[in-house]
């Protein structure tokens, strides 16, 4: 048989190969079918002597011709084309054989080709809603921090404050290997962590803080996850940045990190005197903002202080007026003792001593009362804050999870002001504390594929005791019987206890609509006690009646909330209905009252995408809110060195409706883009004030008034001019607010306040080393009561940027402020610069920063209100030039 077969093959070879020449190894020929029609694109492969691996291959051309070359030896050659039977022959290529012609006729394959469905294994590297970026494809080595790196990732935007956005949306958190250390305070990480250990950046779209809610809750959140390379895992790394100036300004920043598979540690320390507020994002760590998110019960519960001695807001950068000496240290760790258990700890210590200087001239003209007050104010705030958080997550199973979060905050504050009030030297002292304990336990069960049940319990205990003392007695007119008093004190304590339980079901329907139902009970008890006393030296003279509060306010809110979201083509409709049954109890001194109101809060939202370029979002809601403890206390409280205020001493629920419309034309990435935003809200009832204004004091009492309206219209426009490579930005805004109050026994006064702002900006995008950004904005404020008062201010800026090369860049920022109502000293100029030179790539950078180069000493500001005008002068940090060095290890 074998012999016959071999012969047969030999015969076939002879039969098919019309020409055989014995020289070399170029094989050529023609592939045709029975009808002598050339077969286009048939495959010719030469395999090894075992007929397994393909050594070389080619395809026939449109005439069926092919050529293929091979080494000498024993091979198999096979001819194949789809729809034809394969033909394979042994092939012996001898030395000296340089050409071989093989023409082949292929037989058609009779077996019909049925449809074949192939279920290929899908790669696990592609996951739902995850975009994975391998950083090495995006970096160019100039990136220093994570922030620099993220700027290079397409689709991510990082603004001047370090806010990271995916498209136009801020990220929820920045994780490292899936572990989150900072919540929304991620800037501490992104601004400090070096870029080089990061191998991959993952953008997680439709992100859910609770993994079991993924795909169920309505989430448009985005989070980032940084994956570290193997090399940097379990390695200590970090950086130090030191800056020293000619006149005793300094800055020191240090980061130390260790990321292992099981444990992660991050230590951070910052010391500075250049006005930089390192604690900017601490608030986010203490109270992460998770609005409307399941299991967020109690997040909106906190104490507001009655009294504050703090630097007032200025119309420009806080760092220019913030004379500080800040020391901050933070220790963070994540432990993963087992696959199911994750423990997160966060500790935080901050010491700061800030000084603030302000001189003001307040002119009051109301109802015939006219006077002018001068204040020379020096404020020193000292604070010490310790914060600890323990987050314990136990994954019971794939569909069940238990999470417990414990927080503790202890803040000690000592604020002292040196005040010269109308020539009287006065010292104010406020010592206060904040003590917070917060415990939350949450159980999540994804009981069906698209249905989740959450049960959350929370307990919060917070108190803010305050001791306030003024070494002067300005209130002779109020307390004529205590005329020999020469100083006053107020002791207050404000305590809050909150306990809540909430059951929440999220049900994502087959058609993608989402139904949410919640039932819960929240109990809050506030105890406010204030004790105001008049002293002569150290002797207590009087604790005047009407100035002492003993208020206990208890609110029990039993509620049912429902929410349904429908999507039909280009429309999305969200309907909400909240039912509240309240049980209020108010105890002011000896009097106790109960009230059990019931109310319904409905709201509706409609989003309409007309087409790619026209989008409308709108919503309407009607809201009833229960009044808070600071609205309800019965007696006067000292809220500043010359102000007393008092609550309404009774229950109230305030009704308001509001409407929002936003229209967007074009997209952000288009040359032309514009957006118009309109907000109208109407408070059917609101708290206003009945105020007595005297030169030495004001006394204001809350009163309930009907109807207050607020309208705000904002629009912006972007247009890119190609011929000057610059983008024009136009901003137009208008806000109008109408409300009423009583001053010095007037009738109900109607106050209309209007704000207009209009501005334009040009920013270039030249390819060379130079770029500019110039802008100006006018704001007009107008207040109308019985008299009309208005002024217009203008702010302008010009920033120049020079990028000489990869190692050296220089940025210059200048600002001009103009105050329309000041006759003299109404124009201010500021000039800052920033230069950076990279000494060793990724290791050492030298920098030079100059602030306030014109050495402007003070800054005057003008403002108006419904009772008068005021001119305020702030002392500014003097000119300094900081030599900076940054080293990475």
């Amino acid at each position: 048989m074998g012999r016959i077969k071999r012969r047969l093959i030999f015969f076939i070879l002879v039969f098919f190969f019309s020409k055989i020449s014995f020289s070399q190894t170029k094989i050529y020929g023609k592939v045709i079918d029975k009808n002598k029609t050339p077969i286009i694109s048939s495959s010719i492969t030469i395999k090894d002597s075992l007929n397994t691996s393909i050594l070389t291959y080619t395809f026939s051309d449109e005439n069926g011709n092919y050529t293929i070359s091979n080494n000498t030896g024993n091979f198999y050659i096979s001819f194949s084309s789809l729809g034809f039977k394969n033909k394979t022959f042994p092939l012996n290529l001898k030395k000296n054989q340089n050409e071989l012609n093989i023409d082949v006729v292929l037989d058609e394959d009779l077996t019909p080709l049925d449809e074949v469905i192939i279920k290929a294994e899908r790669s696990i590297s592609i996951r739902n809603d995850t975009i994975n970026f391998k950083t090495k494809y995006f970096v160019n080595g100039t990136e220093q921090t994570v922030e620099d790196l993220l700027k290079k990732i397409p689709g991510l935007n990082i603004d001047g404050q370090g806010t990271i956005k995916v498209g136009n949306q801020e990220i929820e958190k920045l994780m490292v290997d899936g572990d989150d250390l900072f919540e929304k305070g991620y800037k501490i990480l992104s601004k400090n962590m070096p870029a080089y250990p990061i191998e991959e950046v993952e953008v997680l779209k439709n992100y859910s803080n609770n993994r079991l809610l993924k795909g169920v809750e309505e989430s448009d959140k985005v989070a980032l996850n940084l994956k570290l390379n193997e090399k940097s895992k379990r390695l200590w790394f970090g950086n130090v940045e030191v800056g020293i100036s000619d006149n005793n300004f300094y800055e020191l920043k240090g980061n130390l990190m260790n990321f292992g598979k099981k444990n992660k540690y991050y230590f951070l320390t910052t010391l500075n005197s250049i006005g930089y507020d390192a604690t900017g994002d601490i608030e986010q760590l203490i109270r992460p903002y998770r609005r409307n998110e399941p299991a967020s019960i109690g997040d909106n519960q906190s104490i507001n202080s009655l009294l504050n001695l703090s630097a007032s807001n200025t119309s420009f950068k806080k760092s220019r007026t913030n004379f500080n000496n800040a020391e901050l240290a933070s220790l963070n760790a994540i432990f993963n003792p087992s696959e199911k258990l994750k423990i997160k700890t966060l500790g935080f210590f901050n010491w700061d001593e800030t000084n603030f200087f302000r001189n003001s001239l307040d002119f009051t003209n109301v109802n015939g009362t006219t006077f002018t007050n001068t204040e020379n104010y020096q404020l020193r705030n000292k604070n010490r804050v310790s914060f600890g958080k323990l987050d314990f997550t136990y994954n019971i199973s794939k569909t069940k999870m238990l999470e417990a979060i414990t927080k503790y905050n202890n803040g000690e504050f000592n604020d002292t002001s040196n005040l010269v009030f109308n020539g009287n030297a006065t010292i104010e002292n406020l010592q206060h504390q904040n003590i917070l304990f917060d415990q939350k336990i949450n159980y999540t069960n994804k009981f069906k594929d698209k249905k989740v049940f959450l049960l959350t319990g929370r307990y919060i205990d917070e108190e803010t005791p305050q001791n306030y003392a003024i070494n002067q007695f300005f209130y002779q007119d109020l307390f004529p019987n205590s005329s020999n008093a020469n100083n006053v004190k107020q002791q207050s304590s404000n305590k809050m206890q909150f306990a809540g339980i909430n059951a929440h079901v999220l049900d994502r329907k087959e058609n993608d609509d989402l139904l949410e139902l919640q039932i819960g009970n929240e109990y809050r008890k506030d105890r406010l006690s204030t004790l105001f006393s008049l002293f002569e030296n150290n002797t207590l003279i009087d604790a005047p009646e009407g100035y002492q509060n003993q208020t206990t306010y208890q609110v029990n809110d039993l509620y049912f909330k429902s929410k349904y979201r429908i999507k039909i083509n280009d429309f999305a409709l969200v309907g909400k209905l909240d039912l509240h049954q309240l049980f209020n109890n108010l105890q002011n001194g000896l009097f106790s009252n109960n009230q059990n109101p019931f109310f319904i809060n409905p709201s509706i939202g409609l989003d309409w995408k007309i087409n790619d370029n026209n989008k409308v979002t709108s919503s309407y809601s009607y809201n009833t809110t229960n009044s808070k403890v600071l609205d309800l206390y019965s007696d006067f409280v000292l809220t500043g060195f010359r102000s007393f205020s008092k609550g309404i001493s009774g229950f109230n629920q305030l009704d308001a409706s509001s409407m929002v419309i936003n229209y967007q034309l074009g997209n952000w990435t288009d040359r032309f883009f514009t957006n118009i935003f309109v907000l109208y809200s109407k408070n059917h009832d609101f708290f206003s004030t009945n105020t007595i204004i005297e030169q030495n004091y004001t006394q204001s009492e809350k009163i309930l008034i009907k109807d207050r309206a607020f309208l705000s219209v904002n629009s912006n426009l972007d247009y890119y001019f190609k011929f000057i490579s610059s983008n024009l930005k136009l901003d137009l805004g208008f806000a109008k607010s109408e409300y009423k109050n009583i001053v010095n026994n007037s009738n109900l006064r109607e106050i209309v306040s209007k704000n207009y702002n209009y501005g334009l900006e040009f920013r270039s995008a030249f390819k060379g080393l130079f770029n500019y950004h110039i802008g100006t904005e006018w704001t007009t404020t107008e207040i109308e009561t019985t008299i009309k008062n208005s002024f217009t201010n203008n702010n302008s800026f010009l920033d120049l940027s020079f990028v000489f090369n990869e190692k050296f860049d220089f940025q210059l920022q200048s600002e001009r402020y103009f105050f329309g109502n000041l006759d003299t000293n109404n124009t201010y100029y500021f000039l800052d610069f920033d230069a950076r030179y990279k000494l060793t790539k990724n290791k050492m950078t030298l920098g030079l920063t100059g602030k306030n180069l014109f050495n402007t000493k003070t800054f005057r500001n003008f403002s108006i209100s419904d009772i008068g005008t005021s001119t305020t002068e702030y002392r500014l940090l003097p000119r300094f030039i900081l030599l900076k060095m940054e080293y990475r290890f």
Partner: protein
Amino acid sequence: MKQLIYITTFMKNFLLYIFTISSFIFLNAQNTKAFVVNYDIYLNSDIPNIQNGKLLINSSKSESFFIISGFKRINDVNDINKNAEDNADLRIQMKSNKLRFVHVKPETDSLFSTSKYFSNNYLISESIPKIDWVLLDEEKNIDGFVVAKASATFRGRKYYAWYSTTYPLSFGPWKFNGLPGLIFEVYDETNTYRWIIKSIKKENDVPFNYNINEYNKISLKKYVEVKYNDDEITTFLKAKLPRGVKISSEEKGQRNDIELIYEWENNTKK
């Protein structure tokens, strides 16, 4: 005697040969049908999404047409009937899109592909790129088909392909061509792009047609020039940045397309 055996064998084979030819004349309707291969295309470069790819090879195998359609979000994969797309942006973008395809015509050594770049629909022409596949000694099984591995670096990305010689076709998805068998799966080493086979079938051979006037005709070189070197778009986005955002070093727009570098560009960019 030996000769006789040869002759009889010859006769036998010859008759068989004649016989088979005649039988095929009546039965070759099989080969008048176009060969159709469907693929899933995974694009992870920006917003992860899956698109459908349909590779049509005409009955004479003289040209291929790879049509790209659909834009379904990854989370809808398990639920194909569901048409709810959370991000209406994507859907609308699709509505306005022209037919997207890669048309390969070996006869004239030409390849036409479409691309939309900032509201311009381009029909880009180039000669069929030669991909230097290295056949690797590795096999695996995709749903019963034994496929062999090959790798190639093409325009800045390293690809791995799994092909089956059961289907001896040199055409492939997108611009891939020149493997000894049909590509069942091909992906780049970063997993940013991936094409995976879904089905193979035959359809009636309908000539490929598209309205050439709907597109701006452009050569590949010209297109690359427009997209990367005349970076008006990236420039104006830079001009839209708010105050305080410093651009500290002039960053070249990082390419993240399937093709990262072209033959005529010098290779130092990486």
